[in-house]
């Protein structure tokens, strides 16, 4: 009941500590971390997936990011981030509030993106690659024209996992006085204000679910028509023959 009261209090919907602001802060940090993780994880995942080279090495290194608790990463990075501020010329405030959180989250997001890109490409039928190569597609054309479209749903699956983890983990930013929804949790604990803590948790969970649903929609949208379930609208109109198992083209 107290939680509902908390949500219905207009004071919690405006100002620097209002829900919209906190959500925006939360999302900005998450987006930045995901973007960074994508820029690193996706090319590596696609490379090892296409060539099969150095796959074990890359995946194992990436998984270290998963193994170390984000909280530990945050604490370890904090002194470094602060120490480098004068040298690299950013403000110590950013060094304190943003950089360690951002890096801890990015590190967490790389493994699912990288591993799914790799697994997605690996799951593409070798015969298709061979057929493509035999017809004179270049390696880049095979990657862009065959592997990525066919693996798109698995690749986006990696983003979904990464996004969920990042949204949940962004709450620890509040420890180092960054904003975001973690503020409600951390401040709530400090003030022994349980409704605030619960409200923060509910908001984080709600945001995670919303983003996950959006990405699920994207995943569906990116699944090539020829691979969609025959029940998908449009595909059914074409289907006049009995459906063998979709995919594989065999």
């Amino acid at each position, binding site marked *: 009941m107290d939680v509902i009261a908390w949500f219905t209090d207009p004071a919690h919907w405006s100002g620097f500590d209002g829900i919209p602001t906190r959500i925006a802060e939360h999302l900005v940090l998450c987006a930045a971390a995901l973007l960074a993780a994508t820029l690193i994880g996706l090319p590596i995942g696609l490379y090892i997936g296409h060539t099969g080279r150095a796959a074990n090495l890359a995946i194992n290194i990436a998984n270290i990011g998963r193994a170390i608790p984000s909280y530990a990463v945050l604490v370890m990075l904090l002194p470094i981030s602060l120490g480098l501020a004068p040298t690299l010329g950013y403000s110590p405030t950013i060094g304190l509030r943003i950089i360690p959180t951002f890096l801890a989250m990015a590190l967490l997001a790389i493994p699912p993106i990288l591993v799914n890109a790799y697994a997605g490409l690996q799951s593409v*039928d070798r*015969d*298709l690659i*061979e*057929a*493509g*190569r*035999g*017809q*004179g*597609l*270049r390696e880049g*054309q095979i990657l862009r*024209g*065959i592997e990525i*479209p*066919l693996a798109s749903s698995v690749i986006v699956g990696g983003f979904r996992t990464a996004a969920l983890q990042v949204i949940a983990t962004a709450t620890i930013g509040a420890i180092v006085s960054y904003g975001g929804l973690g503020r409600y949790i951390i401040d709530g604990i400090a003030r022994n204000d349980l409704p605030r803590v619960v409200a923060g948790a509910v908001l984080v969970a709600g945001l995670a679910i919303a983003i996950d649903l959006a990405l699920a929609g994207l995943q569906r949208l990116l699944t*090539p*028509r*020829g*691979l969609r379930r025959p029940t998908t609208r449009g*595909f059914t109109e*074409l*289907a*006049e*023959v009995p*459906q*063998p*198992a*979709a*995919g*594989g*083209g*065999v």
Partner: protein
Amino acid sequence: MHSQTTGHAVSRSRAATVEFDHVTKHYDSVQNRRGAAGAVDDLSFTVPAGKICVLVGPSGCGKTTSLKMVNRLIEPTSGRIRIDSVDISTRERTELRRGIGYVIQQVGLFPHQTIEENVATVPRLLGWQTARRRERAHELLALIGLDPAKYARRYPAQLSGGERQRVGVARALAADPPIMLMDEPFGAVDPIVRERLQNEFLRLQEDLAKTILFVTHDIDEAIKMGDLVAVLEVGGKLAQFGPPEEMLANPASDFVARFVGTDRGLKLLSLFRVGHLPMAEFPTVRVGDDAGTARRRSRTHAFPYELLVDDGRRPIGWIPDKAIPEEGALTADQAVPMSPRLDRRTTLKDALSLLLDANVQAGVVVDRHGALVGVVTVDEIAAWMRQRNASLGETVEGRDGTGASAEGGTEDRRAGPHGVDAHPAPAAADSP
């Protein structure tokens, strides 16, 4: 937009000569342990332009390896492969491949692309305009017997196995390449569909006249499809190279003899058609002929039956000599039911089978209108094959085992794609 290209369904393009010159592929022990494809040992042979050469042999004999060396999916350890005298190792890989049709057993249609897009793969790579690509794809779909209006926009998952195989062939033909590589192209479909696809393809090839390298492990398919057959043994050695009838009549080694099987005599028969037999004029009697005359004439030949035909020379049946009436006119109801009806396109194997099946000595050969062409007997088939094998044996001796000269005698033997058109009538056991 589509006015200029109506008419010719497929241009009759150039074919090219493919030459293997001491081609060897070794795999080191590590690759072998990983189950690498078969090695190839000093392979030399030439496929003349416009011919189908079938590479056949047990698994691990290097036939697929040999095929993939032609479009450089695999590079030989040593030796040269030339296409129209040009060493392919001097050509850019992707450019080479776009000029060679490639069909594989698993077809490898891209499941996220429509049939039309799949067929137009190489034209797209070659930078053709959209309209031209579409036109070409539709032309090819029509050629392989799939209605473009119905199939062009479908996805591979919506096609049957046989339809997908055909699309695979259409895709390989899209840019009208002079050479096609086909790796067990009909291996993944059931025997009935396979037979139909084989026949369709042979009929296509009559017009296309591409140079085709065709891999199979099925000796019957090799005999049926090949103008030339290269038999490979495990280890990638060429055991025999030549037209299929030569391989059947004169296997070069025990291995080849074992591989083609003990029924190679029958297989040889399947390569020839009734039309190949010399058919002498066969004496007939006509409905309404005078019985006395017929009876007298029957004594002039040893065959104990007279063949009764109608006014259009269409055979009605046999009249046993003893059953010819003393006088009066011959009528249709005096004849015993017909023995098997064959036509010129019936293979000798099928003809023999029909004769044995009906427990008769002679089959009646008719033309398209049902009129009598002649009569074929079991003895005649046997005698003709004996004679043919004897003459083939002479020409084969002294021939270079791996040379390119193995074309003699292929001219008229192709059994062709048109299947069996025999019409076996229910035959009485006591008829001729």
